[in-house]
Structure formats: C-alpha cells, structure tokens
C-alpha cells in the first residue's frame, strides 16, 4: 500500500534471483487502516507471530511497551509475581524459556528486578513465540521459544524515534550507510532514576552516593554484498547497577556496597543463497550474563568481598533451508561452549585477594544437529516433523539425547483446523533460585556428572476455528507435559548464604507434571480488536527428600487464568490516530509455603534449656503439610491506556500515551510476613498513572 504498481515481463530459462524496489507514489487521504491482528497474527505450527504495533498498543506499567509483558497476555503463559517480566509457560519455570535476540540466547531479560524487560521495542522487528509445538530447529529449553528479531536498519533513508517515559528515555536511529547496500541501527535507553540524587549530592558537595540505574544499547549493521550474500553484525549490551557509598569523616571509615548485572550479546551472521533453492545462515555469536556484588569497608582494617556469577557462551551454528515442491526442509548444527562461574566469592583482606570456591567453575560443551521438514501433500494436511540430537559434555560425563518433534494440521473445513503435536525437549543448564522473585542473583548452573539435563515430553491436541465474516477466531489446546530432572535448592537455603558452599551441595533433583486446557477467542478487524483467553492448568513437583516423595504444587500452580485485551480505534486515518486499550488480568493466587501448625519442642540432648517448653529460645517447631501449601488470594488488575498520534506534513509523528496501571487500586499481595503473632500481606503495586511521549521522524 502506498507504492506505485510495477509490471515486468520475465523470461526464465534458469534459476534466477532478481530484487525490485517499489517506488512510493500514491497519496492516501483519509484511508482507513486495518490493523494487524494484535497477537495471533499468523499461526504456523505452534508459533504466534507478534508485530511491534501490537506491543505498542498494550497498556503497560509506567507506559513502557514490553515484549515479555505482552506475552503474559497469552493463554498458557503466567506472570510470576505481579508486575514482573518473567514468564512461566505451561507450568515451566522462567528458565525453561529460550529467549533469543537475533538468534542469540539472552540469559537475563530483566531490568529493575524484573519490572521491565531488557528489550527496546523500538529496535525490534517482530517476535515469534512457540509453546504449542517447538520445531526441531530450536532446542535447549523445555517449555517455550521466544525468538525476537531486531530491525535491520533502513536501506533507503534515515529515520529515528525518541521516547520519554517516567522511568527512562530512549533514542533509536537507523538509516543507510550506503543506499540499498548497507544500513545501520542504533538504539539506546537509559533510566532517569538515579539522576535526581546524583545531582543533589553533587550540588551539595557530598561524596556519599546511592542510587539505581540501568541502560540498554542495541546496534546492528546490515550489508548486502550481492544478491546472494548478506552480512549482519549485531550487538546488545544492557546493565543494571545499584550502588551505595557511605563515609564517616570523623573516624575516616567508609563503606561501599554495589551490585550490578549485565548482558552482552554479539553476532556475526552470513546469509547466503546457493543454487537449487538452498539458503544458508551461518552465525557466530557470543552471549555473556554476569552478576556482581561488591562489599567494601575501609578504615583501620579493610575488607572487600566480591561475589561473582557469570554464564558465557561462544557458539557457531549453521541453518540450511531447502525449498522443494511440497516440502520445505531445514537442517543445521550448533556447537556451543559454556563457561559457568556460579557465585564465586573473592575476599580481599590485607592486600591479599583469595577465592573461596573456585572449584565451582565449569566448562561444558554442547553439540546439536537437527533435521526438520514441513510437508504439505495437499491443502488439507500439513506435517512438520523432525529430529534434534544433543550431545552435552559436562567434564568427563557425556549425555546423548535424540529429541523427536512432530506436529500435524488437518484442515477439517475451510474455517477449522485440528492439530496435534508431540515433542521432547532437553535443557543442558539449570537456573537455581530460592526466592519468589526473578532475582539477578539467581544462578545459572551446568549439568554435572550427578545432575542430569532436564528433560520434558509435551503432548498437545487442539483446534482452531475462524469465523471469517464476523472477524472472530477461536482456538482450543489441551496439553500434557511430564518433566524430569529439574533441580531446586534444598529446604532451608536462604537467599543470603553466609558460607562459601558450592551450589551442587545445596540442591535436590526432582520431577514435574503439568497439564491443562487453553482457550482463546480473538476479535480481528477494523475498529475493535483484542482477545479473551482462559487457562485451566495444573503444575506439580516431586522431589525425593520433600513431602515423602509425593507431588506438591509448583509455586505458580494457578488453576485459573483469564486475560482480556481490547483495542479500540476512536480515530484511524493517516495523519491522526487515537485509540483506547484495556487489559484485564485475573489469576488464581500463587501457591506459597506457610507453616500452619506449631508443636511443643524438646531440649536438645547435651544442651541446657535456656527457655521453657521450647526446643530453642526463639521458636517452637513449625510444620506445614507440604511445600506451597497455602493459596494466596486471587490476583487481578485492570490497566487502561489512551494513545493519540498526529502526523505532520513531512510524515513525522508525535504520540502521547496516557496509561493507568491497576485502575481500581487492587492491592494484590506480593508476599506474607509474620510479625508478633499476626500475619501481614505486603502489596507492591497500587494504582500507577503514567504518560509517555514519543516522536518518530
């Protein structure tokens, strides 16, 4: 739309590749633009493709559009704690999702302890989300794939985007390096949160500092060498930092405490078209996640402790596409080298620095290959099947897995499709967490000789129906997913561990079982779009040393989830758009572990009794029947936004977006705490209004 027609007569004698660029040339006045479907735009074997316009429209906390929070509105996808940007897909914990940025895994996707995700939507092209069935070309995680593609940079003209929200500002520019040959994209985002305190302290001449900040930096270069070869180079760096520096001039003592976490991803990709319809993508990438915590005290005696956690991956992979008559085959390989440094502690005292647990460092190698074929024998039937092999090397231990993947679509009528899928997935790394939050201190740890890769089967059966005249479609999915060899901390391990124990001494290995039903009704079309979905789900865990080896609920075992998204265009013409958006989220409460019973204790043999009746002076023994025994109250909130966009004669756009998170101020409990024999609920996110300004040129 908006381009002149072009007609060319071709005489094809052999395989030929010709690129044409359409010329702009039609002035559109008062044309009604029909938006894309705001979520399930194109479903292909379990994939939901989401465009960025859809994500921009969704109301969000502090007005910042967020890829991950948009995914939370899909059936079968659960939020962890309120407001956080983690996703739990079909009972899997958030580490079971492979989140790829331009094909590179990003190991921590959070800013501000998960309230924002690390992805700048202005720099992104689209998002593919797989949970129904995962094709053989993806692997390494149990539950889902989030494949995010960055824009490639405009080859024709320079353009940009500037945005200001209550917490951050962002700038994105893109344009040609050489017209039609090479382009670039640069996007940056930085928070404002630390600036007021920094400015105040500086003006006051005060050396003390404290605050919190984050930034993101994305860059990409796209170079079309010739019609058969293209090179992409992309890089991402995001960092969060909290810092406190306190000093006492009277006794010359000071203390410094900081923690920070950051991601680096870098990619070089060569895209090549070979004869016989063979497309080849060869990529070399590096992905690094690291978390650091520094505590330093200076005075008469100095002490410094550094806690360092990192996961680094170097990989090379090749993906081949071969298009035949009724088949589209894909095959490829990936070799990854991982270096894990989980919670290494370095202590510096009297100028000597020493490490307390260097034996936890591990280097693992994984080699994966896959073959996948999409076969469409006729317009009624469509198969996608494949196999993925993994070799995981952990020290002297080797693990081999063959993962079958198969999905099947049958177009029963012109408007209804039945589909079935079966898949096995494995995961060569685990995330250890002992909190209710997605903390940056959570540990990515490797498989070892004793701790096997996690393994899952998933069986999916479903149906899609399209009501073409009424712009409605509906989908229904049933899934059953047993999981083996997942790990969690042993009971009683606290977030702050006071000794220097290696992680593998502190974990239990167990299994999981997840099953449920997902239903979605979606409205597409002109003025009004959106969807309503409902998930009925069960998620169980079983560990040898817990609950007598019986199943108990996963903390995100929420029986019911309802998501509603409504977008309504009040005005939708070329130079002016106004729309109203609404999301409502309802979920059964999370399962939390709360002792409910207390008994009389004993005096430990060999000790003296300091108190009366009790085992220890502080407490009587407390019991709960099984972990995650208590169901928190249901969680719900309503968010709205109103956006207005005006376009200038030159085509520049100004957009204001006004949002209110948690419109009716529902105080959803974040966690419980006992004080003086009473229980208190702590709520974190009340009603939060915000406004965001966006300028695009």
């Amino acid at each position, binding site marked *: 739309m908006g381009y002149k027609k072009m007609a060319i007569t071709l005489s094809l004698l052999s395989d030929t590749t010709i690129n044409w660029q359409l010329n702009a040339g039609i002035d559109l006045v008062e044309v009604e633009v029909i938006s894309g479907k705001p979520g399930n735009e194109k479903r292909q074997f379990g994939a939901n493709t989401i465009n960025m316009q859809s994500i921009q429209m969704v109301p969000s906390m502090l007005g910042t559009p967020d890829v991950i929070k948009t995914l939370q509105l899909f059936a079968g996808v659960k939020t962890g704690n309120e407001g956080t940007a983690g996703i739990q897909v079909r009972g899997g914990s958030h580490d079971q999702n492979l989140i790829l940025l331009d094909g590179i895994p990003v190991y921590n996707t959070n800013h501000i302890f998960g309230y924002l995700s690390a992805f700048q939507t202005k720099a992104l092209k689209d998002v593919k989300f797989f949970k129904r069935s995962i094709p053989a070309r993806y692997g390494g995680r149990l539950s889902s794939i989030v494949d995010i593609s960055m824009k490639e940079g405009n080859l024709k003209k320079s353009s940009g985007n500037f945005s200001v929200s209550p917490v951050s500002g962002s700038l994105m520019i893109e344009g040609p390096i050489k017209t039609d040959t090479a382009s670039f994209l640069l996007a940056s985002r930085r928070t404002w949160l630390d600036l007021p305190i920094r400015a105040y302290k500086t003006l006051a001449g005060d050396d003390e500092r404290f605050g919190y900040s984050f930034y993101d930096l994305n860059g990409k270069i796209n170079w079309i060498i010739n019609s058969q070869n293209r090179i992409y180079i992309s890089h991402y760096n995001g960092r969060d930092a909290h810092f406190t520096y306190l000093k006492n001039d009277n006794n010359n003592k000071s203390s410094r405490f900081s923690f920070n976490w950051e991601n680096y991803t870098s990619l070089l990709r060569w895209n090549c078209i070979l004869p016989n319809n063979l497309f080849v993508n060869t990529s070399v990438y590096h992905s690094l996640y690291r978390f650091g915590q520094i505590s330093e005290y200076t005075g008469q005696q100095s002490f410094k402790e550094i806690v360092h956690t990192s996961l680094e991956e170097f990989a090379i992979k090749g993906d081949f596409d071969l298009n035949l008559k009724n088949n589209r085959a894909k095959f490829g390989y990936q070799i990854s080298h991982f270096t894990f440094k989980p919670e290494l502690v370095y202590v510096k005292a009297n100028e000597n620095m020493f490490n307390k647990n260097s034996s936890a460092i591990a280097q693992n190698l994984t080699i994966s290959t896959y073959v996948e074929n999409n076969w469409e024998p006729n317009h009624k039937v469509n198969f996608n099947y494949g196999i993925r092999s993994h070799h995981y090397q952990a020290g002297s231990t080797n693990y081999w897995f063959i993962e079958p993947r198969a999905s099947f679509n049958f177009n029963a009528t012109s408007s209804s499709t039945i589909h079935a899928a079966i898949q096995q997935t494995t995961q060569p790394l685990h995330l250890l967490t002992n909190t209710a939050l997605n903390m940056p201190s959570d540990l990515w740890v490797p498989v070892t000789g004793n701790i096997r890769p996690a393994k899952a089967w998933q069986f999916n059966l479903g149906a899609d129906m399209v009501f073409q005249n009424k712009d409605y479609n509906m989908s229904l999915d049933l899934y059953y997913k047993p999981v083996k060899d997942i790990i969690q901390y042993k009971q009683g391990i606290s977030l702050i561990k006071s000794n220097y124990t290696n992680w593998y001494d502190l974990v239990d290995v167990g299994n999981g079982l997840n099953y449920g039903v997902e239903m979605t009704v979606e409205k597409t079309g002109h003025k009004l779009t959106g969807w309503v979905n409902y998930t009925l789900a069960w998620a169980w865990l079983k560990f040898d040393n817990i609950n007598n080896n019986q199943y108990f609920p996963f903390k995100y075992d929420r029986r019911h989830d309802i998501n509603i998204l409504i977008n309504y265009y009040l005005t939708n013409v070329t130079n002016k758009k106004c729309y109203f958006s609404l999301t409502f989220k309802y979920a059964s409460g999370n399962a939390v572990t709360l002792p409910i019973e207390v008994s009389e204790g004993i005096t430990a043999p060999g000790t003296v009794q300091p108190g009366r*009746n009790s085992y220890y002076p502080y407490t009587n*023994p407390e019991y709960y029947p099984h972990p995650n025994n208590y169901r928190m109250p249901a969680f719900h909130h309503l968010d709205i936004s109103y956006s207005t966009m005006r376009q200038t004669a030159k085509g520049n756009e100004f957009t204001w977006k006004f949002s209110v998170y948690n419109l009716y101020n529902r105080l959803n409990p974040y966690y419980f705490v006992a004080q003086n024999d009473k229980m208190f609920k702590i*709520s974190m996110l009340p009603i939060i209004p915000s406004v965001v300004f966006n300028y695009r040129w």
Partner: protein
Amino acid sequence: MKHRFVLILFVVIITSGCQKEFDLKLDFSPGFTVNGILDPDSTIKVKISKTEKIGHPGEFQPVDIAVVELIDENQVFKLPKQMEGIYADSLHVHAGKTYNLNVFLPNNKILSAETTIPSKPVATVVHNPDVFIYTITLTDNTNEKNYYWVYAQSGYFQSNFMKPASKIFNENNIIYTNSVIGDEFNRVRTKVFPDTDYSYSFGMRIPDESISDGSITFDIKISEGWNRLERISIVSADKNLDNYLKTGLLQRDQKAGGDTPVFMIPISMFTNIKNGKGIFGSCSISVFDFEFYNEQSN
C-alpha cells in the same frame, strides 16, 4: 485545585502500596505431639501434648488420656502417666537395640514411631590452657551409621555449706573453629578469634562420612576468658533425632535471620511420628567437664 489533586494522587500512590494485617483463614484442627528421646544413661520419658495453630504463643495442652506402650523387641512396657502429659518409667534402654512406641488415643487414633539406640561416642577431649583450645579426637563406630553433634556449655559452682559444691550449667556456647569437618548448614564464616575462621551456633554436626580414616582430630574454642566450668558434650544421635535437630536449627536460623518469605522458602520441622508431630529418637552422650576455678583464682 490542580496542585491539590496532584498532591492527593501522590499520597494515594505512596500509601496504598503497603503492609496490611491479613487473616489467612487457615483450616486448622489440633493434632498431637509426641516427644521422647531415649538415652541409655537416663530413664524413659515421653511427653504428649496437642498442637496449636501457627502464632500460638503460650502453653501446649497436655494429653492425659493416652495409653503409651514401649516395645523392646517382643516385650511390651506400658508407661504410666507421671505428670501432666508425661508418661515415664525407670526402665533403661540399651545401645544397639530397636524400640517401638505406640500411643493410643481416643477415637482409635494411634501414633507410632521407631528408633534404634546408637552406641556411646568414643572420644577424647584435651584442653590447652595456653591458647584456650580444646582438641577433640572422635573415633567412629564403623558398625553403625552415626550422626554426631558437638555441644559446648558453661556454668558455675553452686556452693552450699551443708553439701559439696554442685555444678550448674546455664549457658549454651557458640563453638569457634578453623576446621571444616562439621556440616556446613549452620557454619558461619566469622573472625572472632585470630585462629578461627568459622562458628557454629548451637551445635556442630559431624556426619560419619566426614570421618574417613576411622577417627578425626580437630580443635574448637569457646572463649578466651575463663569460665568457671566448661562442658563439651559429644552426642551420637539416631537418624530421626539428627533430622529433627538439623531442621530445628534451620528453622530457628531462618527466623533469627529475619528473612522474609519472599527471600526464602520456609522449612517444615522434621517428624517421625506417624499420624502426629514431634520426635521419638535416641542418643548416647559422652560428656567432658573442665573446671577452671583454681586457675582463675590464681
């Protein structure tokens, strides 16, 4: 007016994300607790009481209507009620033997448990007064699975002109050490003394996997001052008592550390009482007393 609206909005936002008292509406009905630790050096005593809802601060209601049986292989001993909720007998138990406990309550409710008495720890404790260090040598009984706990107490002599002075131990002491032979779960890195790196609050647990060569020797320190009386107790606990002691310490440390539920997963107290709560376990103890009255006076 606009300013007032902004001010009110600000106050609403700040004050509404907050802490509020909450009724958990727990579905609770009281159960029964059985506590009994068998020790070859003591007579048998079992206490039975009712459990309470979490947050209960006071006494636990004793159960006086139980029938308590201790089964020594094929012999059944009925333990008579001595005091409120306490069932006791002057019987002695023996190391190496397995004992079963059955508690019969109204409505045909039966609580039961089993324990095997461990043998007495074989250990020596030598005190070096120059550096205030106790050197402990512990020899493992390789015929049984042992769970050792080392405790330290201090006390004083209570004088009475009619009788010889008696020993009163009134304080449980923290154990300081440079050894990592003990289990790590309650080990804290701390530099209280120049020659110790770690401390164990309320007991140093030594599983017999740590005793690789049949015996181990390690040093501990209690203080660098003179207590009048110091006692080192080495307890060999059965598996049930060991689990109970360990989970009890973990539970205590979670509360003492002030961790809020968002930062930790609470631990449930171990129990081996079928259909109830509490502990039926056993132990044998070797005790080493050290008197410093003379040194301190001099």
